């Protein structure tokens, strides 16, 4: 990395980095995408008990009005489900092989976000979307490049001793009785 990061005089201390399993990003396109089609998409996935771990919808006249991530194992089912709704199917776009990297905590401060933008940009890693939650910043990039992204971030970010980036080992499933 070059030396333009003079603004970071010391490493930013964080509490952890979490990586996702492999995901597929689904973009909802604005072409003739009526408001109720958007609702239909989320309803269909709920009816088929498919979780959407990350949802970003802005609906403000852009070409892509929303993006969400689903587990790679669910994508074939989703394609079958939307095949029955031609208007919906035409207006979906899939980006396979993505993953998320979550860093916490952000303390509602822009420094950690700025650093991540800076480093991801310098590395030319694709950024398909990002969002804050209560404590973390989550970035969507190529699944195959998550480890590279983490190595670069760790040059400027300090994890607590004996901590390393982790992938969740507990899966919560919601089922109707």
């Amino acid at each position, binding site marked *: 990395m070059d030396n*333009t990061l003079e603004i970071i005089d010391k490493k930013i201390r964080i509490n952890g980095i979490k990586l996702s399993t492999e995901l597929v990003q689904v973009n909802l396109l604005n072409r003739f995408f009526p408001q109720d089609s958007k*609702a239909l998409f989320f309803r269909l996935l*709920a009816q088929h008990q498919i979780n959407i771990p990350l949802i970003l919808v802005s609906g403000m006249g852009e070409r892509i009005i929303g993006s969400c991530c689903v587990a790679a194992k669910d994508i074939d089912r989703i394609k079958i489900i939307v095949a029955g709704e031609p208007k919906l199917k035409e207006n979906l776009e899939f980006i396979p092989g993505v993953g998320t990297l979550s860093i916490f905590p952000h303390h509602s401060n822009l420094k950690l*976000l700025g650093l991540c933008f*800076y480093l991801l940009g310098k590395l030319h890693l694709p950024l398909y*979307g990002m969002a804050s939650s209560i404590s973390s910043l989550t970035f969507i990039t190529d699944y195959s490049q998550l480890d590279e992204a983490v190595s670069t971030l760790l040059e400027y970010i300090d994890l607590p001793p004996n901590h390393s980036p982790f992938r969740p080992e507990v899966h919560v*499933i919601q089922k109707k009785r």
Partner: protein
Amino acid sequence: METFAVYWEPKPKTYGFKEVVDLSLLDIEIRPGKMSQWGLWLMELADLDIGFHLIFAKYSMHQKLRFYILLENRWVDSLLSYIGKETDQDSEKDLYLNYPVELISFQGPHFGDRYGIADTAFKALNGQGVPILITVCSGAAVYIVLPEKKLQDARPLLLEAFEVP
């Protein structure tokens, strides 16, 4: 080794709702190749102690990332003044300000791992005259950004759909 926990409830429980008014939504189009520059500017803005209630970015079209910051109105002047002085003219043109807006957010147990949470929120608000500007579901949290004075309409509808302690 993986552990699976099974979870279900008829009306999703939340840990409570948070409401914030008098907010501004700053919307920046980040052109290809400009992300690291914006990263540096954001780090400098952090030194002005400008905090945020929500940030997110998504593609607005291919290769164009649109970045949103939801912040309190009191920060807008400092932020615009910084952008006017420090950023280049092209980037300044890619910036839009939408205000005033309001935020209602809530979280619940394992929301990020469970299907149907977003659908429950959309079902509660759709067709009820509550225009949703932004919806973000990230981690266990749900954020809904509304135009000014619409929070009072959204609140009872969401309280009906979700269980609040």
